[in-house]
């Protein structure tokens, strides 16, 4: 069970959080002209990197804030957690 530092609440057990997927994805802008391929990449394609990765997590049983976590996917080491705008 990971120990995750919510940037708003502090250190909490993984139990309080939900994993929210790849934190490096940017949603295309509304009304943006976009090819089928680009859109499909956004909707479906995700990297599954070995090692350092930025993820989204959601403090569902806490402050209900989404934030980003830089984590090693093999060792589970967490290097930093930060607010989405940081």
């Amino acid at each position, binding site marked *: *069970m990971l*120990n995750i530092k919510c940037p708003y609440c502090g250190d909490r057990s993984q139990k309080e959080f939900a994993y929210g997927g790849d934190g490096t994805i940017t949603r295309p802008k509304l009304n943006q002209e976009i090819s089928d391929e680009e859109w499909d990449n956004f909707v479906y394609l995700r990297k599954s990197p070995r090692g350092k990765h930025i993820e989204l997590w959601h403090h569902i049983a806490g402050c209900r804030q989404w934030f980003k976590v830089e984590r090693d996917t093999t060792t589970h080491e967490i290097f930093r957690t930060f607010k*989405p705008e940081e």
Partner: protein
Amino acid sequence: MSQNFRLNTGGLINRDKPIEFKFNGKKYIGYEGDTLASALLANGIHLIGRSFKYHRPRGFFGAGVDEPNAKMQVEINGCSEPNINATEIELVNGLSASSQNCWPSVNFDIGAINNFLNRFFPAGFYYKTFMWPKSFWYRVYEPFIRKAAGLGIASLEKDKERYEHKYEYCDLLVTGSGPAGLASAYAAAKNGAKVILAEDKPRYGGTLLTDDVTIDNLSGKDWSEKIISELKEMPNVIVKNRSQVFGYYDHNMMVMFERTGDHLEKKPKYTPRQRLWYIRAKEVLLSTGSIERPIVFGNNDTPGVFLSAAAKEYMKVYGVLIGKKPIIFTNNDSGYETAIEFKKNGVNPIVLDTREDQKSELINEAKDLDIKIKFSYAVIVAHGYKKVKSATIGKLDKDKIDFENTEQIDCDSICVSGFWTPTVHLASQSGNKLKFNDSIDAFVPDKSKQNEHSLGAANGTFTLQDTLKNSFNTGSEVSKSITKKDEKIQIPNTNERKYSAHDKFWCSPLPKGKNYKRFVDFQNDVAVSDIEVALREGYRSIEHVKRYTTLGMATDQGRTSNLNGLQLVANVEKKIVPQVGHTTFRPPFTPVTIGTIVGREIGKEYMPTRKTPMHHWHEKNNAVWVDAGAWKRPRYYKRGNENLFEASKREAKNVRDHVGVCDVTTLGKIDIKGPDAAEFLNRVYTNAWLKLPVGKARYGVMLREDGIVMDDGTTTRISENHYHMTTTTAQAANVLSHLEYYLQIVWPELNVNVVSTTEQWAGAAIAGPKSRDLLAKLFPKIDVSNEALPFMGYVEGDLFGVKARIFRISFSGELAYEINVESDFGLFMWEKIIEIGEEFNVQPYGTEALSTLRIEMGHVAGPELDGRTIPYDVSLEGLVSKKKDFIGKRSLAKEAFNKADRQKIVGLVPLDRKSSIPEGSHLVENKNAKLPNPKLGHVSSSCWSVENNNPFSLAILKDGKNMIGKKLFAVSPLKNTSIEVEVMSSHYVDHEGKRVRS
């Protein structure tokens, strides 16, 4: 029966308190402070079970977690549990144990025939023997293997015991209360750190209880008692015995198993039997000690063969002799400690030392006591079937690969010592890659991956002086960095014997022409020859050898077999052990009961139960419940002998004819506020939201980015910047997370806040032609006419002094309203509706009637919005805006979503107007077609249409748009039905939707 092998004095047991227990039906006496193992040994009982594969007689081998053989079925406090280690369970009055894996009895075991047929049970025999014919597997082989190889028998009864979970946080967790654990915990505690010290055994002290040492002129035992009592006085320290830290998980999450109840004769009512601790420790100090390694020789599994340290522990802790004519077979000085202890207790051992004419302090001491020592000697084979009677021993040649001469000597036990293996399981679990230490022939922890340090024997440090020095220092240093305090501690003076170098000898060679079975893994019956076979057959990786031979895969996790197994592979492969590597250590270190893992989360405590404020009214009115997530909802209200079908038909009919009331509190409710709320809704929903006036509701559909419908519901504009969204019961939590995601991550520039208000509002839907009349009586001051409060209108009112929200929305397709009041007034509202509605024939209706009403109206719900449908599929394409962008819109342009024969929702009626169509039925053109019969669609929802008095179903059908009027078959292989159906519009009742607007 007398305790013939109990010493008159000595040990830590209480001879004033005899304890009666049973083994295999026979009564015995032991003492308070005994384990089941020590009490049986005191009574001279060695034969305790049969081995796993060959059913060979087996006896005790160790004295604690190292024990591979003594797994028993134990009945204690009326609960029967298999695979309990007899060396770990404490003796209590009334305990009843029996042998496992033997039939009909441990003395006469039919399975032992396997021992004589052992050429048919080679390594990998499960893989080789039972592969074919395939049909034999479940009929013949599996039942046979299960019966013959089964360990204990799990009880089929419900576990009546209570188990608990506990969460704890600390600066330092210290695992093990031997010298390393005591010293480090003490140093850290003195620095003010919050310390948890966990000891697996009932007694603290570890090897200090059995080793002949002094610390500051106190015996090891007295010193450990002094430290423990000081630690117990300190408010920043938790000291726990009977507690095994068995798992080292991510971010220093440690899991500990505490045995709280089984050792108590009368357990207080609320004391759990066992407790699971989740401990988040800033630092973990692993002082888990070491386990003695066996030396492998012929028939080394015969009862009466022990680890030498175990024999010593039985004498020093339990006052029990494991034998009166022992052979000590050793490759190092430890064996001499056991020999000396035997001698002190009046028993004459003979020591066989594999080393050549070794000299040391201990050996001199043994010589001074007149203990017979034979250097360069080894045990070749033990004789005796159910108990060791004699042994063939031999003088090793110079290379120690053969014997110069052999002789047979009488003995009743053989104590082996093949040096020490650090217990590195937890360190390895933490991610620490182990390194091989040549000087001790074993793996020790290397660089830490988490905040952990191994101390003392667990780190390969085998002298007391070094252990104490390192442990006091590490305890101080690690705690200092947390508490910033630095209390100086005087490291105590120690007195211990000096060891001379050990010998790497680990396995007696076979004399020419002899084929003795030499076991490496006792619990899984893996012999030297099995591993050799695996290697001959080409298995190379130690992980493969392990799986093929099952070496180290038993419940003892290879604690005594692991290194000898590696040594053997290394020898055969002409490698060295570090090149072979080691298999992975995984939690749990020792077996943990399922009850403890489950804890209190059983039965109705498995998950929380959500009840609406009207729950007790429903209960009093014979509601039959259905689970909707964690919610309890009335499925129907039973009157007299009604069944589900009759009751739901009555309730639905009453809505169509008069008026019904339904508890809709469980619907998800989300408050949305902020100047950009309308813009946000416009992006979330597929339809237009910018022009919704205050006081109006609108139905909306939201998609996922992949174009699939996520949820639907109505949202009402309460005031300028304030909206009230409803979601389905099932999707409430997901929708909230979804909205939060877009507001916080994707469009943080929108000034909008969302919060769940599901728990804050109680909701009642009143539906049916009489609902307006009822509403008028509930709110006499409000104009509820169709003009003043039209379909999709919203108004706030006063329900006999209670503030209420009134929404004119409908799920049933009838004229209907939904009233919300604050949850505290939910029951008040409900009772008023029932009371005032009496004159209009109001009846409560449950989810079954609710489904009937929505299905015959063609309203979609969960079964249609199943994560595979786009708006077109469920005929919601009219709600998809062409002008604006929204979440998931771009996906709707996908080719597959725009095919001419795209699936679409339809209605189905059986041709016979009688047969109900099972939900999940597949729609096919020809029911007798050759398999696989092409599937055209599936039945999503079924009901008995109360309007038309015949069955009606909704289905998602390929090219549904052009299938109206066609005849198909709805087949359900599960229900074994095949019903001819007619395809029609999904709107079976009130096609134009007049009623909701009436």
